[in-house]
């Protein structure tokens, strides 16, 4: 039978009961809108974190002391910072290794208080080598960074994050002022650009960088907490890992170091967020099922109300299949209309939310929502439509 004709019929009967149709669609609208909103939220978060990782510096591999367990099964613990056998010699050797390795730097993070004229702030102090800033994409806004001679001559200088500079000095000039960390008095030589907190590692806006040699005297330990290695390109990461491992195995015991790459960390986090997004979407999908039950309910009412129409159609030659298709299509049109409105609301909501929170509407979440609402219409429309198609025309015609 003529599908455009059935389509017109179902639109007409939906229009006939406007309030009822709108209320029925509401369930689907809420379900679809919340699926899209929550999935865009999860995906936005994923994008945001991936972006943060990239800002942190791409193509990095990190050497940590001890056996670090990260996606490599059980038996490995957190990094063994206290027993670290990594030294500045390893850093300079690795930097000179060449091949896939572009550069290597060390950064020791020490929690410590920084003081200026009675003001005190507890923060992360990082003892860094001169090239650390370049590798981690840390940019200086005012003054200069930590250079090679600062490290070699053990100069008492410090580089402040934007946040900590504002905390200590407000609007007044920070350059050239003297701050105290532990027993060391340090002259401020530079202030960093605003960065926001990096996905991993420390809060860049609130950290203080000092030459690594100064850092070692603040902490009273010669140990290095990590060596960061910059690789020339993404494709060369695994050869850089191999070269690093090969070098370190000539210097240290197998258990004294771990070589990790960012992809490891990123994929673990992405995986977790992916599961989270799916779970959020799944919870929202439950409301779609509830919406489907609403459609089934109203379709059952419609079938009862239109018993005579069904009897008449059958008497003049409609086959059970024709009646079935008519009512299934009516349910599908109802739920698809709800789906389309839900998509508009969900996408619009995501767009508004993206102004204040990472959210991005993806094509697949929209097409999934559209597909699911069509499916809901079919699944929940079949039972009432079957009931209609099985009506005996004589009984249906007599129905009061």
């Amino acid at each position, binding site marked *: *039978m*003529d599908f455009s*004709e059935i389509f017109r019929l179902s639109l007409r009967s939906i229009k006939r009961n406007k309030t009822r149709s709108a209320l029925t669609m509401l369930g689907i609208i809420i379900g679809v809108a919340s699926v899209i909103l929550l999935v865009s939220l999860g995906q936005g978060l994923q994008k945001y974190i991936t972006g943060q990782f990239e800002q942190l510096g791409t193509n990095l591999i990190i050497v940590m002391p001890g056996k670090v367990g990260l996606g490599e099964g059980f038996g490995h613990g957190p990094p063994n910072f206290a027993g670290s056998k990594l030294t500045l010699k390893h850093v300079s050797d690795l930097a000179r290794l060449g091949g896939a390795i572009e550069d290597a730097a060390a950064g020791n993070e020490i929690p410590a208080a920084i003081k200026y004229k009675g003001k005190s702030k507890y923060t992360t102090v990082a003892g860094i080598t001169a090239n650390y800033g370049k590798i981690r994409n840390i940019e200086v806004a005012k003054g200069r960074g930590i250079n090679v001679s600062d490290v070699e001559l053990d100069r008492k200088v410090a580089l402040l994050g934007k946040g900590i500079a504002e905390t200590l000095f407000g609007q007044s000039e920070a350059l050239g002022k003297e701050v105290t960390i532990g027993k060391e008095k340090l002259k401020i030589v530079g202030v960093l650009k605003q960065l926001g907190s990096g996905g991993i590692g420390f809060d860049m806006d609130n950290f203080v960088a000092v030459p690594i040699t100064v850092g070692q005297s603040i902490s009273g330990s010669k140990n290095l907490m990590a060596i960061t290695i910059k690789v020339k390109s993404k494709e060369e990461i695994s050869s850089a890992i191999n070269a690093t491992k090969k070098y370190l195995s000539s210097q240290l015991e197998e258990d004294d170091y771990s070589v990790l790459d960012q992809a490891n960390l990123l994929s673990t986090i992405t995986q977790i967020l992916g599961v989270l997004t799916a779970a959020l979407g799944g919870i929202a999908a439950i409301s779609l099922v509830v919406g489907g039950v609403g459609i089934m309910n109203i379709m059952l009412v419609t079938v009862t109300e239109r018993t005579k129409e069904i009897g*008449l159609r059958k*008497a*003049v030659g409609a*086959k059970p299949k024709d009646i079935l298709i008519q009512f299934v299509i009516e349910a599908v049109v109802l739920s698809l209309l709800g789906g389309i409105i839900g998509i508009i609301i969900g996408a619009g909501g995501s767009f508004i939310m993206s102004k204040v929170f990472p959210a991005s509407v993806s094509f697949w979440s929209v097409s999934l929502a559209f597909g699911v609402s069509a499916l809901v219409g079919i699944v929940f429309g079949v039972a009432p439509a079957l009931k209609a198609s099985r009506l005996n*025309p004589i009984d249906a015609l007599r129905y009061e």
Partner: protein
Amino acid sequence: MVQKSVIDLNKVSKKYEMGEEEFYALKDVSLKISKGEFVAIVGPSGSGKSTLMHIIGLLDKPTSGEVYLEGKKVHNLSEVYQAELRNKHIGFIFQIFSLLPRTSALENVEMPLIYSGVSKSQREERAIEVLKIVGLGEKLQNKPSQLSGGQQQRVAIARALVNNPSLILADEPTGNLDSKSGEEILLLLSKLNDEGNTIVVVTHDSDIAGRAKRIITIKDGKIVSDGK
């Protein structure tokens, strides 16, 4: 002249079982209706005339006996095939609710053609043609609520005619009408019969039956008289 029979019933019975009790709505009814006849089936309510109409109209199946439509055995066909035969061979006119509400006269008349797979333009053309035959050529777009009772019944007649049926089956076609409108409907049916349509009217009204060329009286599930 050998008259080809449109409907041929051979010892048709319809039995209902209510718990232990058996009840025959029809018992061994044999009946032939030929092409071009105008037959009235009369009888008091409960006589079995509605059951007889349903069996002739392929809306119901007999418990025993045989039904032939245009010489073809039809009583044991599937629901789907019977629907197809109803669509092509039988035009129904019902006493009440014979039209879809909020749907124009034109679309009501088109409805049977949708199920025979006729294209939209051909459907419209044919529906307009039959609406003109019943004198409603000016009321194509009117909804049933905008038509009088007599006009509504004429739309129903147009719908019955639209597929060029072998048989027009009318169940109390004037039951809900005032006498003037009823008279018009009966005149229309007579005219259609004069033009060669086979018409069967089921009624309890002997006035209506008087218009028919043949009256079959049924009582307690049996034909008690047949003739003019």
